[in-house]
């Protein structure tokens, strides 16, 4: 057996760092189907999982891949899959199953330009709304957006911790540029990595209610084979997990699924600020576009423009309250994202009509140039 945590400095891609982050978080199962530009996550996991006592399975397609990680998680194992746009579309139904059955797992989307087959080898950030709304029905989701190989290592650990804490699929919405980019990744000692795992039930095994929330609002989750009788269904269910086709049962279940996230926003939402203290114009960005935005803020400051960056580490749940507060003290917002307007509309919604909100978007295939941001900074304000 080799160590799951490869302590030391490495020069690896974002995809490889994602796999190492998963292993460091205790992931022991990967079910996937290869797709550019996410294949290297699977490739690394196929080499490394057997070394640490884990299991890698290449499934027949992405529908099965998503089903397999739900199954592995129900068996008590931390599980993950990685894909790109076309595969993400196929996973949508089973992501919904993961939400309603409250099954922890991590889904990585290394985004490429779409729609459909699009530009397989070139990046985009155009699946951000699909991440929020792609599966049918109402739900709350958690999605993270790393901007470098080092960040993807840590954020993959965070994704596992959040999924285990709140019992839901957590999405890592990275992109081809970060996924294929190489940079120094420093992996700390295993003892310095904070790992959270699901709470398992204690006590009597008869009359067990697998969906009855514990004191923290989340139901303890047994592993299949522990002896607790569980019933999992995609149908609306009660605390026993049995289907109940009533308006009341739907309301109770939905209340729980929504509020376990909405009541913990302060613990879930992660953001970062750069030169925001005296900022008059705030750039909102996430993922690879953070890098463009950091360069643009520095350049703008040299030109005497008081720009700052409000960077989303978790894109979902969206930091509505923070944007509302910032809107009270600034002249306006510019959202920088590698799509033609997705998170921009969230910023606009939360900023209201108090201040103007602009988009620096791009149809995808490359990174946005800082020059594009500077142009809007100069022209719009």
């Amino acid at each position: 057996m080799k160590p799951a945590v490869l302590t030391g400095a490495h020069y690896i891609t974002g995809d490889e760092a994602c796999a190492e982050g998963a292993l460091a978080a205790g992931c022991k199962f990967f079910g996937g189907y290869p797709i550019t530009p996410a294949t290297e996550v699977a490739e690394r996991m196929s080499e490394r999982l057997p070394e640490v006592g884990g299991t890698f399975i290449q499934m027949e397609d992405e529908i099965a891949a998503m089903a397999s990680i739900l199954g592995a998680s129900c068996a008590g194992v931390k599980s993950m899959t990685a894909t790109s746009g076309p595969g993400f579309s196929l996973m949508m139904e089973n992501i919904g199953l993961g939400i309603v059955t409250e099954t922890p797992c991590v889904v990585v989307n290394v985004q490429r330009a779409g729609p459909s087959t699009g530009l397989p080898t070139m990046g985009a950030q155009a699946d951000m709304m699909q991440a929020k709304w792609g599966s049918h029905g109402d739900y709350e989701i958690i999605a993270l957006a790393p901007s470098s190989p080092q960040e993807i290592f840590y954020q993959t650990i965070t994704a596992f911790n959040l999924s285990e804490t709140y019992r839901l699929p957590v999405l890592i919405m990275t992109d081809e540029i970060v996924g294929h980019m190489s940079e120094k990744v420093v992996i700390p000692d295993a003892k310095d990595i904070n790992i959270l795992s699901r709470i398992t039930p204690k006590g009597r095994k008869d009359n067990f209610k697998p969906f009855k929330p514990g004191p923290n609002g989340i139901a303890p989750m047994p592993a299949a084979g522990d002896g607790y009788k569980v019933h999992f269904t995609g149908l609306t269910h009660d605390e026993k997990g049995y289907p109940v086709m009533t308006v009341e049962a739907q309301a109770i279940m939905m209340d729980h699924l929504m509020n376990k996230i909405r009541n913990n926003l302060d613990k879930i939402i992660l953001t970062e600020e750069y030169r925001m203290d005296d900022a008059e114009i705030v750039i909102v960005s996430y993922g690879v576009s953070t890098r463009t935005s950091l360069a643009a803020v520095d350049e703008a400051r040299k030109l005497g423009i008081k720009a700052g960056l409000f960077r989303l580490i978790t894109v979902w749940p969206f930091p509505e309250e923070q944007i509302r507060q910032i809107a009270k003290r600034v002249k306006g917002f510019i959202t920088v994202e590698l799509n033609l307007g997705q998170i921009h509309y969230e910023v606009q919604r939360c900023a209201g009509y108090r201040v103007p909100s602009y988009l620096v978007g791009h149809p995808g295939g490359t990174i946005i140039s800082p020059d594009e941001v500077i142009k809007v900074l100069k022209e719009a304000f």
Partner: protein
Amino acid sequence: MADINNTIATTTEVVITGFGGQGIILAGRIIGKAAALRDGKESTLVQSYGPESRGGACSAQVVISDKTIHYPYIRRPDVLVCMSQSGYEKYIDDIKDSTLLLIDEDLVHPGNIKIDFFAIPATRMAEEIGRKMMANIIMTGFFTAISQKISLAAAKDTVAESVPKGTEALNIKAFSKGYDFGLALLKGREKKAAGKIGAIA
């Protein structure tokens, strides 16, 4: 507009271009890794390639800096390494007066350009040592000598750990051939410059 990364004087932007299969990405990886893990600098490597892995146009973009690198793409390279004519034609309009241009002289024909360039028959030299696929390593050695952007020790160690097991010695030999060729070229130019009194060295 000024280059964002270059507003920090200690930043070097390198583009390596050629065909898929020539080891362009590996050359970029060796340069970036040597800088980041052995020379104590920051570096980023981004790559571009088409749906076909081999035969298509491909490029590696490496940024090396003493400071955190925000923007990993390159608009005006400080060093441009060309191992294919199409790669050369794609990037030649992006160069500036100070750009160091390195070419495989059998594969790239520069025509009329305003800047000086450094030429090496890397692929022919690789064929002479019996491994055409090591042209990228020869070019990496040539880059190390001409550009001085990564240290010799860092480059050599990184080459040795980046190539398939059992081929280390031959790859180091290929690297040294490129490095020595580069040094000799530089020395020749110094002598020539010293001989011309009053000329700009």
